[in-house]
């Protein structure tokens, strides 16, 4: 893969000279014995996941009544968590697909992990639309399957049905894209395992690698399919969250019924996704000592995207308010005033502070290069984006048209536990992934090593010296 890299750009990987070193670095966690901290955290997240699943079982056994929802606020944690997790997934797709199309080579170090993040997040997300159903065991009816019940069909008018298609497409494409991208690396691991005499591991990775042989023809096809898949995945970045936003936008409820939602949701999704990428990458590069591959430059680029999307989200918030006032509709006006100053004011301001104010700190280079601060800010973004969905869903529902049906919503331990449980599940999967699969896309990172030497006069001027 030859591409022109401006000589004045900094290198995307540092302190690394050879392909072998890259392979060794990336494969180290896979080949070494599981470390104690890894075992500990995997166990912890596994337990949290189990806790979540037992609460899910309880919900299924008893009924949705074990949650705090009521007939005014029919959705709360369930759909909030759903939108939250779907949103997180978006950064992965953006990084792997959109940035590939735009030839942003820096994505090479982080795309694998962020795609994994996408898949795990979408898995977490997919749980909730299932769980929120009163009769989960009839979930099959969401699918337009031919049946013997006369002309009974699904309702193609319903945004919830669009969701089913959007999410399942998204999960499929992401999974295929992620897995396909991993095949050359899996083959590398297979070969290393075989060389190290670990027969079983070699066999397993061999099966996983689909017999990759690395011929030029294979590579060529691989590159083509990657491009095609990224082409397919790119519209998904926009469509999935647009469709999710239509769950709300097509309704008549003030605060939901707005045309701004699709772009607003997509911006929010990318924002939250990059927030989550930051959180994960900071931890991963630290734990697996991959600072040479996920460099400060990577982290800075992510922070810049966060500033951009955070500002977009802020713009959306203000626009909503303006339009509510400008519409002249008392329902709209009240919905927004109630958001900011009603009984759930704290959630609105939590959202506003976390999503609009905190990312602006990334304008300062010192802050965005300080990994501790970045980590904290990224957590704020995660929290803020969760609250955004909570605000949209709960504050719009709890006081809609007729004051007689206004009510408050308070979560119970069950729904809170299920939410925490999905974090356990997410982390559990991520830990397994980081141990058994290559966290960094080795073959793509290797392409970054292969850039031309900078002309010596520039090096001299900048005082740069290529590490030898």
């Amino acid at each position, binding site marked *: 893969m030859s591409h022109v890299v401006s000589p004045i750009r900094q290198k995307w990987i540092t302190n690394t000279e050879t392909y072998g070193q890259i392979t060794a670095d990336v494969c180290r966690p896979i080949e070494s014995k599981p470390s104690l901290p890894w075992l500990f955290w995997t166990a912890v997240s596994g337990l949290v996941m189990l806790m979540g699943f037992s609460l899910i079982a309880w919900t299924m056994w*008893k*009924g*949705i*009544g074990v949650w*705090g*929802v*009521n*007939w*005014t606020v*029919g*959705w709360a944690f369930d759909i909030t968590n759903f939108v939250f997790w779907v949103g997180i997934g978006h950064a992965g797709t953006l990084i792997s697909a959109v940035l590939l199309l735009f030839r942003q080579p820096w994505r090479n170090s982080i795309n694998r992990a962020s795609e994994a993040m996408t898949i795990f997040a979408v898995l977490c997300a997919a749980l909730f*639309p299932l769980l*929120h*159903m*009163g*009769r*989960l065991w*009839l*979930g099959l*009816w*969401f699918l337009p399957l031919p049946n013997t019940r006369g002309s*009974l*069909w*699904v*309702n193609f*008018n*319903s*945004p*919830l*049905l669009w969701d*089913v298609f959007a999410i399942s497409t998204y999960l499929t494409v992401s999974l295929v894209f992620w897995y396909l991208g991993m095949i050359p690396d899996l083959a590398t691991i297979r070969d290393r395992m075989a060389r190290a005499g670990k027969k079983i591991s070699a066999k397993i990775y061999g099966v996983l690698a689909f017999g990759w042989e690395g011929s030029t023809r294979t590579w060529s096809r691989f590159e083509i399919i990657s491009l095609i898949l990224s082409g397919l995945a790119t519209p998904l970045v926009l469509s999935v969250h647009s469709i999710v936003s239509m*769950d709300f936008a*097509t*309704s*008549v*409820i003030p605060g939901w019924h707005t045309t701004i939602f699709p772009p607003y949701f997509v911006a929010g999704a990318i924002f939250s996704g990059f927030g989550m990428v930051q959180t994960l990458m900071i931890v991963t590069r630290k734990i697996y000592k991959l600072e040479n591959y996920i460099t400060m430059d990577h982290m800075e680029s992510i922070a810049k995207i966060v500033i951009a999307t955070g500002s977009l989200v802020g713009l959306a918030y203000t626009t909503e308010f303006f339009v509510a*006032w400008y519409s002249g509709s*008392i*329902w709209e*006006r*009240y919905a927004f*005033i*109630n958001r900011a*100053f*009603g009984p759930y004011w704290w959630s609105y301001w939590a959202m506003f502070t976390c999503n609009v104010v905190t990312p602006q700190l990334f304008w300062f280079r010192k802050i965005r290069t300080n990994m501790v601060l970045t980590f904290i800010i990224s957590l704020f973004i995660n929290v803020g984006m969760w609250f955004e969905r909570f605000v949209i869903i709960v504050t719009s*529902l709890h*006081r*809609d*048209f*007729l*004051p*007689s*049906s*206004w*009510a*408050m919503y308070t979560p119970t331990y069950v729904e809170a536990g299920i939410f925490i449980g999905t974090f356990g599940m997410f982390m559990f999967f991520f830990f397994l992934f980081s141990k058994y699969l290559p966290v960094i896309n080795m073959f793509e990172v290797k392409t970054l090593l292969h850039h031309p030497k900078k002309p010596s006069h520039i090096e001299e001027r900048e005082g740069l010296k290529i590490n030898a």
Partner: protein
Amino acid sequence: MSKPRYWRGLEELEQTPEFIARAKNEFPSDIPMDQVLKEVAEEDSGLQANRRDFLKVLGFGLSAAALAACAEGPVKKAIPYVNKPQDIIPGVANWYASTAPTGTPVLVRTREGRPIKLEGNPDSRIAKGGLSAIGHASLLNLYETERHQSASKKSNPLDWDTVDGEIRAKLDQVKAAGSAVRVVSGSILSPTTRQIITEFLAQFADGKHISYDAVSFSAVARAHEIVFGKRVVPQYHFDKAMSIVSFSADFLGTWISPIEYAADYVVNRDPEKPMSRHLQFESLLTTTGAKADLRFPVNPSQQGVALLNLYNKIAAKVGKGAFPGVPEFNTAMNGLDLAATELFEQRGKSLLICGTNDVAAQVIVASINAMLGNYGATLDAENPSYYYQGNDEAFAQFADELSAGKVGAVIFLDANPVYETALGEKVKDGLTKTTLSVSTAVRPDETSALCEYVCPDHHYLESWGDAQQTAVHFSLIQPTIYPLFKTRQAQDSLLKWSGSTQKYYDYLKNWWATAMMPKQTQYTSFQTFWDESLRKGVMELPYTAAASAATIADTALLEYADRLKQGFAAEQADTFDLVLFEKVGIRDGKFANNPWLQELPDPVTKVSWDNYVTIPYQYAAEKGLKDGSVVEVKAGGASYFLPVVIQPGQAKNTLGIALGYGRTAAGKVIVRGNGSKVNGRQVGGGNVYPLAVVANGAASFTVAGATISATGDTYTIAQIQTFNTLYDPAKGVAFGLDFDRTEKIIEETTTGLISSGEFGKKVKEREDHKKHLVSLWDSHFEDPETSRQIHWKMAIDLNKCTGCGACVVACQSENNIPVVGKDEIARHRDMYWMRIDRYYSGSPENPDVVFQPMMCQHCDNAPCETVCPVLATLHSNEGLNQMVYPRCVGTRYCANNCPYKVRRFNWFNYWNDKDLFSDFYSHSEMGRLVLNPDVTVRFRGVMEKCSFCVQRLQEGKLRAKVNANSTFAKPEDGSIKTACQQSCPTGAIVFGDFNDPDSEVSKLFRKDRSYVVIEEVKTLPNVQYMTLVRNRNAEETEAKLEERHATQTYSKA
């Protein structure tokens, strides 16, 4: 056997002896089972199983299991109609006329021999088809497993013969000793029962029937005795009254015969005809006060003087002498002057009533009515009402006798004085001193728990009987189901104990043959008369001449006037007048164990399941009390810890606590309504009957000198509606934006605005505005094909709705709506398909109140329908928004997207979850007999909502087709009624086919008053509301508006 021509095998051809033997044996025995089993046993030890053996054993095991499964199933309790009973067609309801314990004549709907629904009897002038919440709920008590199931002595079940023998022996003993025998009962409407009691008591030297009422109106009767010389409660004719002034009488909710009065009241409330004028002076805010044209909060202790002032003002107009020395008193807007003028101007067509059980006040009220010539017109003392025959003084005497040990035998005829009177302790005490104490209570209560013998009566739906509501209204009670338990009708018990061998049924028939038969001329044969009366259920006699002349001397009147002056206090500082009131659902507490009634929210406070103390708005604001703050109320030497409910419109220095709570021996359900522990203290519940002591000849339901102190605790009140006002001044003003959504939900006007043309202008504006409500889509109903069909629509007249909640319980009964309990209500998860929204407007000191029944609006552009992913909710071509329960997967999106929030989700398995709801009828086989077989019981995870009683529509359409013998026949207008419509005593709900231009509903839809709730959402609902019209002139309208603006400014500051 010869050789066969065709043979199947060589054996057959050869006819070997083995073959012949085998052919004779139908079941050959040479299947080597023993061997197989032996082999299996050997293989078990030797592990030599081969495939064949495995299959053999498997096959054997399978068939054995299948056989075992076939052998013994559970015994099915259903008995198929092999021989069809003569009058029962499975799937088709039978109707029988009867009379509810409230005295309302009813029709009982039975299916396959079990009563499943009650409806007011439309042939009765009293019911006019309406039935109260309590009346509906009395059905549920039939299937109660907690009922007394057999006769018992000290809680040990006994057979009836033994019990009869023992009671007879004891009665003889008492008779011999010559000591007193008392039959204690509530008001008995049945003339035959009264006669049986008299006959029973005649055997004894000292036998007396003591009649009392838990909530007593004995002062009304006593006052009429004083003024007219007749101890009667008159009949009130609100339909003849053009001016109604009520002092604390909640005649639309709880006073004497509210269903009858509500129906009569609305006759003159049609704004297209001359409207009656209704002024209400009251201390608590009642449903009646909510409907009044003008309402004046008056403290109970000021009421007497207010009445005297009113007397003087009217006396001046009539030209009679005034009471001297009456302190000057008037309300805001000079309410008493208004009342005096209006009562006088409409004299002969006016009506003054008073809800206070105080003889002096009632004497003055009766005198004023007499002075105005209202007797014989709006009141009728010659044809009195028999609902309340109790005599508080006589009962007090009885209690004294009892506790003095002077009573030898006492029989409580379904009466519970231990709980529901102030003298309960005395009665409790005295019961130990009797030789014989018997209770005929249908279900356990505090008194039957203390009686030696319990001889349970049938539930009324298992009984024969009759009732006489007034001098001219009679009705019958007939059994609609075979007695479920080993109970016996109380009348039969009394007859038996009188030594009579007659059955009550024969007695009843005889009585009707001798007493009622001669009163009619239509039928000549008694059998026809009896059959027709049973079929109709009611019999009404012509009124006799009606005017009564006051016989009271002016000097005597002065005495009562003086008595009224005594309690007067201009302003109290720290003490309160405590008013003991009846809730529409719980009333006197007799039916407090009924979960339908416990869950039914109070029309005004919207609280279900709990007792509480209502406090005035100003006091709450001063003391920083909130809904649910726990306070200690001390009154009459007792102390109650109760949560607070802030009641706008309640008079200053007044507290209100409901009667009917704090029952101790009445069942599982009531325990849930009796509050719970907060910080180790029992909060809620509380029996306030001990405070209703007899003073000046009548039990007084107001207690002076109550105090209230905050405890700092908080208690969760289960409130169905938590947000009370339409206008949210604090929020609106803070941001300089107007969020007043009033006019989009409630339309309200006054006669003043109608006559000044303001209302017409507004209607025109609304119509003009409609032109701007454009849609991209064609209406589904402009299609000529659909316009030939039925288009169901419903009109609800806010002017007629009194908020009484009868429709809510009717709907619950018709549509198998589960009871969910207090915790679920507190979580805002009630399951009501229809609710009655209550909104306040104006100043919190004296707000206007609007009741708005709200159910599925069956929108033609239904937001719920488009969002359901599985098409579980769809639109019918008759305009119904239908819910397909089996298809619903429970995403709740439809409920979220419903602008009216009328969809209800089954959060739990309300019918089967034994952990959560086991105390309710839904968890006993017996209790579930009440279910309507035409309506599915919904499983958890399924959405449900109002269906416009689609089962009734279907039934009605089929009936029309069968009757007309044509598949194209449409049901006649008015022949199909939804459950809520049917039950509404005021006829506020009208339902019918909109495509029929002559139907009642289309006529109503064309009126100016008709409007749509939140029209601009363009959901095109099939339910429209009729604007509320208060009879206020322009100045009064202005004054009320100013009050409202003053409040807004107040809130700004």
